[in-house]
């Protein structure tokens, strides 16, 4: 079943957010508007450009399924493991319900019947002077639970009175989503990447997705999930490297206090914030454990970022690894690989 233009644009909006969709997709379509609904209306109003818009949006979405936000775990492979890893990328793509509509997601009724096991839907290979990456793209049904305010229509009069007097009445809601996860093998750096869809799932739910992806790896690799690269040492190095923009940093003060500094949405870099700079100059030692750093991609003028979710605990227990990183606002896999390159240099 072909999705409407409106549905496709709404999917993009949900995955990448209004601000990025407006600047990136809007630039490609030659369309701009102040609000999402107005944007969609302008697209729908141009009936003579419908086919052109459709093609552009389809191409944009196909890249975007490997973009948006992803949680990454990276494994360094030796020569023998690298040879065995390559077998994973020789698999044939099976028929599946996901495949019928890929790269678009299944609609709700079909998704409810879809499997939770990752299903291979596409393969890509990226090669140029600096890159040689094989990618297997998987789709699966997944769930996450969210605690939300219970709608007033479910409350009795007593319940509504209780709420009006200040009580919080919440419920747990379960959402069914379709994840676009992928496994990539970078033969230049001998690294295997497990990437879980962060645009669909909160980080706390990513663990089971990683486990499911890990089970797809050939047993001959003799890998354990705990073998993923530890990126904790990158936090300080990324902060100190004078490129990009630090959007958020968590640190320990010289007296053992924990602090967090986040720039405002229109700000540029924490390192230029007057208050933070003053603190750094006075304290001299602020030990960073958590960081979000962004870079502007020259070709798209899109700001993409990586979040290293370290904890204070990692400063006290060296055995605790920071083996999961989060990429955000990526338009496709090239952006994800760009961020990984930045981190690789900082290890």
């Amino acid at each position, binding site marked *: 079943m072909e999705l409407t233009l409106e549905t496709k644009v709404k999917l993009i909006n949900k995955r990448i957010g209004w601000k990025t969709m407006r600047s990136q997709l809007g630039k490609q379509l030659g369309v701009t508007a102040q609000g999402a609904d107005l944007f969609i209306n302008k697209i729908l109003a141009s009936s003579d450009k419908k086919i052109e818009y459709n093609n552009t949006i389809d191409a944009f979405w196909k890249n975007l399924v490997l973009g948006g936000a992803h949680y990454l775990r990276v494994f360094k492979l030796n020569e023998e493991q690298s040879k065995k890893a390559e077998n994973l990328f020789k698999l044939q793509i099976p028929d599946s319900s996901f495949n019928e509509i890929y790269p678009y997601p299944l609609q709700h009724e079909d998704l409810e019947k879809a499997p939770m096991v990752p299903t291979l839907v596409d393969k890509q290979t990226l090669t140029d002077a600096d890159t040689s990456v094989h990618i297997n793209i998987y789709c699966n049904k997944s769930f996450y639970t969210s605690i939300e305010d219970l709608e007033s229509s479910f409350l009795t009069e007593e319940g509504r009175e209780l709420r009006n007097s200040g009580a919080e009445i919440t419920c747990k809601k379960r959402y069914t989503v379709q994840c676009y996860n992928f496994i990539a093998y970078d033969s230049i750096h001998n690294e295997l990447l497990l990437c879980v869809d962060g645009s669909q799932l909160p980080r706390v739910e990513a663990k089971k997705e990683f486990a499911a992806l890990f089970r797809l790896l050939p047993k001959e690799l003799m890998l354990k999930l705990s073998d993923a690269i*530890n990126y*904790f*040492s990158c936090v*300080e190095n990324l902060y100190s490297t004078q490129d990009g923009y630090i959007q958020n940093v968590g640190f*320990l*003060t*010289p*007296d*053992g*206090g*924990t602090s967090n500094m986040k720039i405002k949405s229109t700000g540029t870099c924490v390192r230029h914030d007057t208050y933070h700079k003053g603190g750094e100059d*006075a*304290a*001299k*030692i602020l*030990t*960073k454990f958590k960081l979000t750093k962004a870079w502007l991609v020259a070709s798209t003028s899109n700001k993409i970022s990586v979040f290293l979710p370290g*904890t*204070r*605990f*990692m*400063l*006290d*227990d*060296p055995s*605790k690894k920071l083996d999961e990183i989060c990429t955000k606002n990526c338009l496709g896999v090239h952006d994800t690989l760009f961020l990984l390159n930045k981190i690789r240099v900082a290890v």
Partner: protein
Amino acid sequence: MKTKEQIIEDWLDETNRDIPSSDVASLCSEIIGFLASSKAKHFNHITFMSLFTELQLEHSSVEQAKALKALDYISSAKLHLLDMKFQLYETEHEDPIELETELISDAYKTGVLFNPETGEPVENFKEKVFPYFTRTQKLMSIHA
């Protein structure tokens, strides 16, 4: 009256005499040099990994083992530039609770650690207690 440089030199000489392993002695010297620097003048809560970060040490188990020995010596009664203290992490995601020396000492004798904030016994406390270091008066005096 000795100068700051002479005092530091004495500490380094003492270290080299006391520690037979040149690797560990060398790391001790590096740590002492850093703690005596102006950058570390206000460094009052020193964790294992914050020291690693400041000294740009490799995050390997070999370096960690050396660092443990070095810090053990620097905080011992011999050199005593640092005091070793302990903190409790009930969970990884909460801020740690500082533990009085007497509390942790009793815990190791009796096998039971009581959370100083709740009074409740801490299950598997040995996995949840981690050291950190503070500067002694001896170290702070060279910054005065």
